[in-house]
């Protein structure tokens, strides 16, 4: 007797059967009993086979062409006539085959080019077409810091950093700021909300009412006005509860495990940045990126918010670039994320750094961004205030077991790598003393200093490779390439932009980077907001890059080592000067970590707001 085959595959085509054979092989690999007929079989022969072996599923492969409709109609008719049609699931695949066409021709499902085995399995098993059938449901969130010891690989630099970090922690221990005080009040508010339920109307709760008044006392006039008189800032718009409910409903419907971008486990995770100004639009963009395989998302807040003393509450959008941090906005976005999506909040450059860490720690973020040197030298915030807030924020990160990454945006202003990397390591050393895990985030792109010095005149490979080498030779810590990779190489032309991102991704992967932040193909377009389709452009480009390179490596020239060693020597020299100065705030004001000639300007927002803890505000 003929063996019982579950699935019969028949290439109803004179020559082509490669697609069907691949599917057949994939199904067999997943444990299905399959039989694949050779090309150039007739309709009659197929029906004879189905009659003989009684498959549960019949998959027909056919390159669309003249006579297709008549041919497959005859097949369906014959299956009907022999009483087999109702017992067989019928699928039709091939170039230009669509679901609609397949349905018109009497098939249960159509499969176009690029069909995956999982999609066919979904059909066989009667699952939703959108269900990717990924085994085990949601994948676990990737721990980017896993396996790193945070040991210093460069002993002398390590000893220097240890002393600088110890001094900074002792020096700033006695200081506080309105930002830190608000963070502590916010913790109390969230604590009461957690006890009473997360209702926004908890503001009527007597304890919360008192806490909100206390919070307002640490805010600037505009934000205090919101808490005391319910007057929101002029450039924000409150969202309707109905819209909020709708986006949650939409996100529930659109949450499905997606095929990964990576083809091997060693390939780095991919993040995108979002911050359209509206949490509803952000969520639509995030859901789109999740569907196309992104591993994590990074929240960008507006500049004016970072320069305001205090955050407002409620569901709000703003007309500025960047989406407001409010407890409600943050909760809403968290609620809509896939369970496997990593989530980071930018908290490094403004007056609300500590409170952002409190929100992140309480409302489900996986990581934040903190670098007071960036915030103080090109983020617009007073360096001393930034340092007090950042060290307090790192202590809060320790409390909530939050990882944070240390970006070097001031290198984009023109500060040389040796200085930005020295600042990265000072922050990492402080975190290390407080047992907080960090991610080093170097620029992985063209930058003003590099343009002036000419290190990328020949290629984009060697200097980026030198950056990574230098970081690795100083500390055993995870690295995020950013931010985004290829910044300043992108143009408004979408193919160039996607290719540049893909090439930088390939190089970062080859250098063993753990995490990569990518731009959309709208990165260089300044005429309007980023379109979701442009985000998908680069995700597609990165996916193809991972597939193409796998675990192979790109080989930089010897120049990488020369520049890498120069950067390490430079970091060492800068740190020696910082230690000699005695105070990292003085070092920053003295230009040791970036000066005006290099494009670093001390921020003024929050100047004079730091106070000793035992002194009244």
């Amino acid at each position: 007797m003929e063996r019982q085959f579950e699935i019969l595959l028949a290439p109803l085509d004179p020559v082509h059967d490669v697609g069907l054979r691949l599917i057949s092989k994939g199904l067999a690999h997943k444990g299905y009993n399959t039989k694949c007929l050779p090309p150039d079989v007739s309709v009659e022969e197929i029906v004879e086979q189905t009659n003989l072996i009684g498959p549960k599923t019949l998959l027909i492969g056919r390159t669309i062409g003249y006579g297709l409709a008549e041919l497959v109609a005859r097949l369906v008719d014959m299956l009907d006539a022999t009483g087999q049609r109702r017992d067989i699931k019928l699928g039709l695949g091939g170039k230009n085959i669509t679901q609609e066409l397949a349905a018109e021709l009497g098939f249960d499902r159509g499969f176009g080019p690029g069909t995956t085995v999982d999609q066919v399995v979904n059909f066989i098993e009667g699952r939703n077409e959108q269900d990717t059938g990924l085994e085990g449901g949601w994948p676990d969130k990737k721990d980017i810091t896993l396996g790193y010891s945070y040991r210093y690989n460069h002993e002398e630099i390590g000893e220097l950093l240890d002393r600088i970090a110890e001094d900074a922690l002792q020096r700033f221990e006695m200081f506080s700021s309105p930002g830190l005080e608000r963070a502590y009040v916010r913790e109390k508010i969230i604590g009461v909300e957690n006890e009473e339920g997360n209702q926004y109307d908890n503001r009527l709760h007597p304890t919360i009412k008192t806490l909100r008044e206390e919070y307002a006392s640490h805010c600037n006039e505009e934000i205090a006005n919101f808490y005391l008189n319910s007057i929101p800032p002029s450039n924000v718009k409150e969202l309707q509860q109905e819209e909020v409910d709708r986006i949650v409903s939409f996100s529930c419907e659109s949450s499905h495990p997606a095929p990964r971008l990576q083809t091997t486990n060693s390939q780095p995770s991919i993040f995108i940045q979002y911050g359209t100004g509206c949490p509803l639009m952000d969520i639509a963009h995030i859901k789109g990126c999740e569907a196309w395989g992104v591993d994590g998302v990074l929240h960008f807040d507006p500049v004016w918010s970072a320069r305001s003393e205090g955050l407002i509450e409620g569901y709000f959008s703003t007309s500025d670039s960047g989406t407001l941090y409010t407890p409600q906005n943050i909760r809403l976005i968290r609620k809509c994320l896939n369970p496997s999506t990593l989530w980071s909040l930018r908290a490094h450059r403004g007056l609300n750094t500590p409170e952002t860490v409190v929100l992140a720690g309480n409302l489900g973020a996986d990581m934040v961004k903190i670098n007071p040197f960036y915030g103080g030298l090109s983020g617009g915030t007073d360096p001393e205030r930034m340092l007090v807030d950042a060290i307090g924020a790192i202590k809060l990160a320790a409390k909530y077991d939050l990882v944070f990454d240390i970006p070097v945006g001031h290198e984009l202003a023109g500060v040389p790598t040796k200085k930005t990397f020295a600042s990265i390591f000072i922050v990492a050393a402080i975190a290390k003393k407080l047992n907080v895990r960090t991610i080093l985030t170097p620029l992985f792109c063209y930058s003003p200093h590099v343009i002036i010095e000419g290190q990328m005149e020949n290629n984009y490979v060697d200097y980026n490779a030198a950056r990574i080498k230098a970081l690795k030779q100083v500390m055993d810590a995870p690295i995020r390439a950013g931010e985004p990779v290829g910044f300043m190489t992108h143009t408004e032309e979408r193919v160039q932009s996607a290719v540049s991102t893909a090439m930088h991704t390939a190089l970062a992967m080859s250098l063993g980077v753990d995490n990569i932040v990518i731009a959309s193909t709208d990165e260089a377009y300044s005429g309007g907001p980023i379109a979701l389709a442009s985000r998908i452009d680069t995700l597609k480009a990165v996916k193809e890059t991972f597939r193409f390179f796998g675990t192979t490596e790109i080989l930089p020239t010897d120049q990488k080592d020369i520049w890498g060693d120069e950067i390490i020597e430079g970091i060492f020299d800068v740190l020696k000067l910082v230690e000699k100065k005695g105070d990292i705030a003085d070092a920053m004001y003295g230009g040791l970590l970036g000066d005006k000639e290099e494009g670093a300007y001390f921020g003024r927002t929050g100047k004079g707001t730091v106070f000793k803890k035992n002194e009244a505000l």
Partner: protein
Amino acid sequence: MKKAWKQIVDSFDIEVVLICDSKEDGYHLAKQLAEEHGFNDYDVVFIEYLNKMARIRLRINVSQVGSHYSWLSEKVNSLDNEKR
């Protein structure tokens, strides 16, 4: 029945090559193309002129950030209808 226009998340692009005399001419024609089709909110994201031809990416903005998103209300309406 859903209206396709209302399902656009944010914007859509028209990628096209236009025969023209200069980059400025191509830019003008791209704007004209948008207006001829009744689009008022548009932008030329990219234009590259070479040898009497301009390769253009023309963006038609549909949903402005912070505005009312038709794709959101359409989605809910269809869910409501299904429930009924």
